[in-house]
């Protein structure tokens, strides 16, 4: 009995130490990425290429999702608001939900699934096929050549994608609220204009999606770089990217929101 308890405790301890260790090597990897970023900025075409692969290629899924999220928001919002006779505020509701929360968060979750997994799988396979080793042996740092451009591409793409998400979401909400339900067109836009604050809402939303960009891209890159160089290792790493990115996004969102609302 006692031995079972102690071995269970030891198991928990091992796993904990393992987590802490991985977190530490992740942090070190992050610092290296920042250090080598200078080298990668000199080869800007690499970053631009990655913006195309991570950002532009994620556009369709993100814009389509945004459109539907906006439409659903308007439907649900109207349903509740009209009970209190304030259905004119529908524009504010849609815009604030998108700009403050859904834009950054849903974009980050979709980004993790669409671009993050691709990054992890690509880097993991490059490692498994010794491409990263070969680069090292050619005196080219894989962090400068492979990791840093992808990192900056993700960090730049995320806020832009989130902004487009909010924009298309508002458009979707508008189409449902004004032409379909018949809310007054002028009220929809003027209420929105009056109640969405540049500093408190828009800038905070951008800050959030910037932080999510750093977190999601870094997790995807680290999981790929750290993956055991086998087919199984890469597939597990890809799964971990989605799980860890999603948890990180939701956790960070809660923390940032509590600071932003408190302030």
């Amino acid at each position: 009995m006692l031995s079972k308890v102690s071995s269970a405790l030891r198991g928990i301890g091992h796993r904990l130490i393992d987590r802490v260790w991985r977190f530490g090597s992740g942090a070190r990897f992050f610092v290296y990425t920042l250090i080598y970023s200078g080298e990668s900025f000199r080869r800007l075409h690499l970053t631009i290429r990655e913006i195309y692969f991570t950002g532009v290629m994620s556009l369709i899924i993100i814009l389509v999702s945004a459109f539907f999220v906006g439409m659903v928001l308007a439907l649900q919002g109207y349903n509740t608001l009209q009970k209190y006779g304030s259905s004119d505020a529908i524009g504010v509701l849609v815009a604030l939900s998108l700009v403050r929360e859904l834009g950054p968060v849903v974009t980050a979750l979709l980004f993790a699934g669409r671009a993050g997994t691709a990054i992890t799988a690509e880097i993991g396979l490059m490692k498994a096929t010794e491409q990263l080793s070969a680069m090292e042996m050619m005196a080219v740092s894989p962090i400068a050549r492979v990791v840093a451009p992808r990192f900056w591409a993700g960090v730049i793409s995320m806020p832009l994608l989130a902004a487009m998400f909010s924009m298309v979401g508002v458009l979707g909400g508008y189409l449902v609220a004004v032409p379909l339900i018949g809310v007054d067109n002028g009220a929809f836009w003027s209420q929105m204009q009056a109640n969405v604050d540049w500093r408190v809402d828009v800038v905070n939303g951008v800050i959030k999606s910037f932080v999510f960009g750093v977190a999601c891209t870094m997790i995807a890159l680290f999981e790929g770089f750290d993956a055991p160089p086998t087919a199984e290792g890469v597939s597990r790493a890809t799964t971990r990217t989605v799980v860890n990115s999603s948890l990180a996004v939701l956790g960070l969102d809660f923390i940032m929101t509590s600071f932003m609302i408190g302030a």
Partner: protein
Amino acid sequence: MSDNIVEIDNLSFGYKGRLLHKGINMSFARGKVIAIMGGSGSGKTTLLRLIGGQLKPTHGKVLVDGEVVHKQNRHGLYLLRRKMGMLFQFGALFTDLSVYENVAFPIREHTDLPESIVRDLVMMKLNAVGLRGARNLMPTELSGGMARRVALARAIALDPAIIMYDEPFTGLDPISMSVTCNLIRSLNDALGATSILVTHDVKEAFSIADYVYIVANGVVETEGTPDDLRKSELPFVHQFVHGEVDGPVPFHYAAPDYKKDMLRGHDAE
């Protein structure tokens, strides 16, 4: 400047505590082709990684051009690596770049040459391996042997002083085999380089190498010129050179007694 471009001095190394190399001494003279032979899993690839500074020795040291490899900082290590070209066991071509761009990669990374000169260099290297016509293919469109030759062109793109070949002959047909064999020798002499050839193919290695090291059980079992080794009466060398099954070299990875292992049944693990 010493006569030996690479010196391996009492080198020990092990993964996870199990020592793979137990005090290896080798020295590679400039301009020579040196073959390192040994059974599968005897740590030949690992040895090349130690020379390239991708692993740190447990004891001892590797000197490349007079510098201790594992004492270098990153900058020093990269300077040393620019003198080396390595052909990986499976090619390790960049799958997102074409054959042309793969060979151009080290040139673009380390020089600011204009595109016309990059092109000339790439064409020369591809011509040397007989694949000038394949320049627009992607690595996935190549056979294993072709991929290895492209990787060779990439490894020699910047005319390295040391060229390391990890099993360049595996999976080649007899014709490509002798072509590659001649290529290694002629590249070595044309570039004035030193070549380190890791292989199990006794016949090919003996036909082009100037000097041969045979490693087993973590140490250099024997060394000498191919002629010396052919004549050698040592049972180990005889077994290796003539490919006999019975002899001092074990075929098995260190394991408990077979009969005991089987009798222990399923409860053992």
